[in-house]
């Protein structure tokens, strides 16, 4: 019996994959896509794996497809770049079992380093794009995506955005049923299709081009995906994804071409809509992807002249766009007086490293030593912010180690003696730090790399990774040891340093930075959100705080700055003792511990 339950877009995609009989799923965590694999591993009935990175995730899913399973691979938008190499070529080689790549784009960059529009990547890779506009469609379209993949022998991109991934809406689901594994032809060798030697790839490219033509015919005829909803004939709008919902909110009566499959664009439907309305608009988030194609048809259309190229749309923004166009029919909901009462002078509330976080002492030390720091992506990126402010660059996952090597080479060539250190998290090290380290060793570099090992992928919500040795389904697997990896690739100087001991860390850094060979310092401290047991009794103030402010430079949320005087929040403090070490008056104490007092 079907039930209507509330599901997020991510949960609905997982549900759709199960209903489609998918048998294999792989991912590396990344907001806003993470919950897809988490849901699958919780629900069971499918083999769900965390891969160390997205390229490997894609390749394993592709292998599973060849091997005869429907396979799903999920990732955030920027990391389709990491998987782009196998993606582009698998477009030529085609699939066996259906292969669906979920690309979770992040307009407005709620938690991302750029705002790329992955419909562009799908176009470049010549694969179709499916785009749901709510959770029900997320489930249904996932199923359709698998069918398209098999029917047209192509990987399919299911493109979602943060507002789809993390919004909940009712979905009809049938629980208590186990869905049969999809029946896929047994694997058989197909040299001309699957071995992309140039001689094989050339005819496959011809195949890809004719596949695009067939896919466009399909896109124009599948009414579940693409349909014209005729209404008022003065305004016609081409739209899809969550933008469709905003449009329906502000122009409920308009004629709309709703695109659940925007690529390849069903040009016949665009022409049909254009011919039936007075004025044509395209409402889409980010790039003028659909709009450019519509213009190429020679059809007059309004799009990015009135709707923004950057950030998210919402009902207000869409209504304002129609106002700009002079089309007064858009109903802008909400009180105008309130809309204009934008809040002034309200202190922002940024995220912070938790009280007792092992990353804090590291960045305090780096800042104190005035080192150049090439950073990486994770909770520790917060070390770039006030008051630690000790990061020079942060680009993409794994970049810290390569950047440190390159920067050091350039500085030395210029006779600049400033010292550089790379900082990378444990999960990021497994993701793409190791190849950077090999490069440093091989090319005779001498960088020092700090691996901040908090035993989890913290930033994205605490997923396991090869370094923890626990699999996506919670089983104990083989742990990959960071220190052993460093030694195996040729780093001779690898050592553990307690990140809660500022003096020890400073001494270790000085020593390693002054040694002309590559070195790795591993700082181990369990993430405070995973292990909440106090490290020591909470810190007490022994003397009347004279208000020197040194401890505020730690940016610890358990230390409140009350008119320049430190007040410890005993409930939040977990006794990491960093403030005890930095207090020049030895006024901060931990029960049973002698004050260290760094002068």
């Amino acid at each position, binding site marked *: 019996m079907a039930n*209507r*339950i*509330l599901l997020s877009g991510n949960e609905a995609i997982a549900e759709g994959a199960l209903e489609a009989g998918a048998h294999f799923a792989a991912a590396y965590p990344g*907001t*806003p896509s993470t919950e897809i694999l988490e849901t699958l591993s919780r629900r069971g009935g499918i083999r769900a794996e965390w891969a160390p990175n997205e390229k490997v995730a894609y390749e394993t899913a592709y292998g599973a497809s060849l091997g005869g399973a429907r396979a799903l691979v999920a990732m955030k938008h920027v990391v389709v770049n990491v998987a782009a190499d196998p993606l582009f070529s698998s477009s030529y080689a085609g699939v066996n079992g259906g292969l669906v790549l979920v690309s979770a784009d992040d307009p407005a960059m*709620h*938690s991302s380093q750029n705002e790329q529009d992955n419909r562009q990547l799908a176009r470049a890779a010549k694969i179709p794009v499916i785009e749901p506009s*709510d959770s029900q469609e997320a489930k249904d379209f996932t199923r359709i995506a698998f069918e398209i993949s098999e029917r047209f022998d192509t990987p399919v991109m299911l493109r979602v955005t*943060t*507002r789809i991934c*993390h*919004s*909940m*809406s*009712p979905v009809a689901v049938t629980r208590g049923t186990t869905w049969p594994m999809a029946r896929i032809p047994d694997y058989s060798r197909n040299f001309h299709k699957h071995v992309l030697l140039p001689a094989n790839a050339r005819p496959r490219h011809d195949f890809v081009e004719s596949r695009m033509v067939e896919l466009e015919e399909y896109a124009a005829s599948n009414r579940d995906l693409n349909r014209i909803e005729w209404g008022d004939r003065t305004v016609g709008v081409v739209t899809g994804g*969550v933008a469709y*919902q*905003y449009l*329906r*909110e502000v122009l409920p009566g308009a004629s709309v071409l709703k695109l659940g499959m925007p690529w390849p664009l069903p040009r016949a439907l665009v022409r049909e809509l254009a011919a039936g309305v007075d004025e044509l608009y395209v409402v889409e988030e980010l790039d003028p992807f659909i709009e450019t194609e519509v213009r190429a048809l020679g059809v007059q259309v309004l799009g990015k002249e009135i709707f923004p190229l950057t950030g998210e749309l*919402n*009902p*207000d923004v869409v*209504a304002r766009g129609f106002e700009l166009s002079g089309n007064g029919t858009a109903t*802008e*909901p*909400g*009180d*105008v*007086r*309130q*809309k*204009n*009462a*934008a*809040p002034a*002078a*309200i*202190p*922002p*509330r*940024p*995220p*912070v*490293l*938790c009280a007792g976080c092992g990353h804090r002492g590291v960045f305090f030390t780096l800042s104190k030593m005035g080192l150049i720091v090439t950073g990486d992506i994770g*909770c520790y990126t*917060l070390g770039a*912010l*006030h*008051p630690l402010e000790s990061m020079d660059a942060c680009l993409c996952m794994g970049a810290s180690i390569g950047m440190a090597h390159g920067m050091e080479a350039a500085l030395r060539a210029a006779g600049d003696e400033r010292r550089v250190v790379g900082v990378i998290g444990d999960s990021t090290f497994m993701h793409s730090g190791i190849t950077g380290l090999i490069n440093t060793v091989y090319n005779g570099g001498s960088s020092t790399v700090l691996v901040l090992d908090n035993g989890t992928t913290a930033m994205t*919500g605490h997923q396991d990774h090869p370094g923890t040795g626990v699999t996506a389904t919670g089983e104990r697997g083989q742990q990959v040891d960071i220190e052993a990896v460093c030694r195996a690739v040729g780093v001779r100087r690898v050592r553990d340093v307690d990140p809660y001991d500022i003096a020890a860390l400073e001494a270790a850094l000085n020593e390693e930075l002054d040694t002309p060979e590559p070195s790795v310092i591993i700082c181990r401290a369990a993430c405070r*959100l995973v292990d909440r047991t106090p490290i020591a009794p909470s810190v007490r103030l022994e003397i009347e705080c004279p208000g020197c402010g040194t401890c*505020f430079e730690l*940016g610890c*949320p358990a230390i*409140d*700055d009350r008119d*320049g005087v430190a007040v410890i929040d005993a409930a939040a403090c977990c006794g990491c003792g960093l403030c005890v070490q930095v207090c020049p008056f030895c006024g901060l104490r931990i029960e049973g511990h002698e004050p260290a007092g760094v002068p």
Partner: protein
Amino acid sequence: MSGTRDLNRGLERDGARVRNLVLAGVGGHGVLALSRVIAEGALAAGFDVRKSEIHGMSQRGGSVLSEVRYGSSVNSPLIPDGAADLLISLELLEALRHLHRLKTDGILLVNEQRITPAPAGSGPVLYPEDVLDRILDPFPEARILPAHDMATELGESRAANMVMLGAFAACTEDIPIHGWEEVIESAFRSDLVPVNLAAFRAGLSLASAW
């Protein structure tokens, strides 16, 4: 109950009206659990529902915002500015931050807790002294509740969100009281259900006396 805090107008079960709720607070303080319970309550009462949130940094003390919409049929998961019927904030400054989301005659329920934000620039953050005035000036009917203290008294400060839910439940007949209680019973781990129910009832009886 005075008419101004009464939500029971305008939402006809078969009409086109949509109820718009904005829920705000600080990471780790139960905004997302609150919005989940409200969305489930609305679904169980037969409404179409949309719930949206940005939760990337929710565990690390940043601002957290969730939006819930319900009615006979809902499209957008996002609420236009100035269109919220109700704003619930689990913290005073966060209420101020999102005040412009509320309709001029919207209902405002605020937990009176103050949590100083982490400094983002140089110098300590000055928690605006006049935060209450800035809330009450445009919204003199706003209700400032000691939800955190009430929940702490019940033995679980994290249940402040359910005190706020109780206060909201008193403002509307959209969802029956037993409907809320059923959702609470299924939403929390069994050992946490009694305290959350108690918190809900405490908020309900406080608001019913207004």
